[in-house]
């Protein structure tokens, strides 16, 4: 599962819906994988304002990845003057699109429920008393 997706996933349990701690989910025992994907600068530019930068920073520190800049990069920082992709954009692409969690668990910060991740697929099925 891409780190991009993880930046949007919340806990699925009903009582967690109103709790701000239900986002982001915290990875536990995560095994990372790297899958090469073609770069799509326009997509990154479109998704950037929607990313929760604080959550992304927490996530990358929890996973022990390289630390991110303090603030969200601006559009100028992503695109060089000649339209070439800058290093910032390349780093973001690698972090969001190519890095993923292959297996492990995702833990809700509010209720502590753990969602298993296997082969990159998270299991969000819940017993009916929790929904």
């Amino acid at each position, binding site marked *: 599962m891409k780190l991009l997706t993880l930046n*949007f996933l919340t806990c699925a349990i009903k009582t967690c819906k109103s709790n701000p701690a239900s986002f982001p989910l915290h990875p536990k025992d995560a095994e990372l994988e790297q899958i090469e994907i073609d770069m*799509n600068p326009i997509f990154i530019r479109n998704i950037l304002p929607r990313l929760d930068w604080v959550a992304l920073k927490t996530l990358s520190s929890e996973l022990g990845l390289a630390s991110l800049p303090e603030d969200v990069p601006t559009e100028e920082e992503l695109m060089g003057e000649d339209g070439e992709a800058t290093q910032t954009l390349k780093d973001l692409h690698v972090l969001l699109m190519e890095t993923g969690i292959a297996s492990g668990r995702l833990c809700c910060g509010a209720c502590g429920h753990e969602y298993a991740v296997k082969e990159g697929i998270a299991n*969000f099925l819940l017993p009916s008393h929790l929904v």
Partner: protein
Amino acid sequence: MSRPEDILPPDLFYNDVESRKYTTSSRIKGIQADMTNRALELLDLEEPSFILDIGCGSGLSGEILTDVPEDEGGPHTWVGMDISSSMLAQALERDVEGDMLLADIGQGIPFRAGTFDAAISISAIQWLCNAETADVSPEGRLKRFFDGLYASLKRGGKAVCQFYPKNPQQRSMISNAAIKAGFGAGILEDDPETKNVKYYLVLSVGGGDVTGAVNGMEGVDVYDARRKERKRGKEVNKKGSKNWILKKKAQMEAKGKVVKQNSKYTGRRRRTAF
């Protein structure tokens, strides 16, 4: 043809054998591709977008989303949800590019508000009309699904859900649930009144009229079932007016009463009595 919805719940029906059959059948592949392309046409995305694939199965529709060429606004990035682990296993085997979740869409959509640009669903949401255990109801599942979908789409976002309603009741149950969740909803019928009729539920989150989705498409008639704003003033059939008399006469005739024939004098104003 029998409906798989009536046989077993989706996670059990799509076992390894059925999933493989579904994914390798070239007939199903062709139909799925046609429907996905039609849904993409309805979504009318101009830039690479973040799309939710509801009931992604083995990623047949997701593959098409990834392969949208650059001049048509692609390639899109997608996240799929499906309840059948066998279907997802098929998707893993086929090495699709999107992320997938094993999740029941009737339990809601576990994404934060305003995540997706658009959502697409091919032949999935009719499964919501079945409740497999006593503690859930179709209405409740539909409500949780549409509420979750509404929240997870960004403002101005659109969703297109192709589905196979069992009967007109199911069709209106689904579209009413979508409207209750706050969507602007419309149903597009392809090949109406044939065996191959396809229903597309077109949903929009705020931002304009849902009928705008079919603007400029060929061979589409818009039938607007929304309540028309009641006309004020003269145009109303005022009691005693000619139109009112004609309407009443027609009503009475329909009831089987003996009604005088209409003539040029019917409802005509009499001369002023001196």
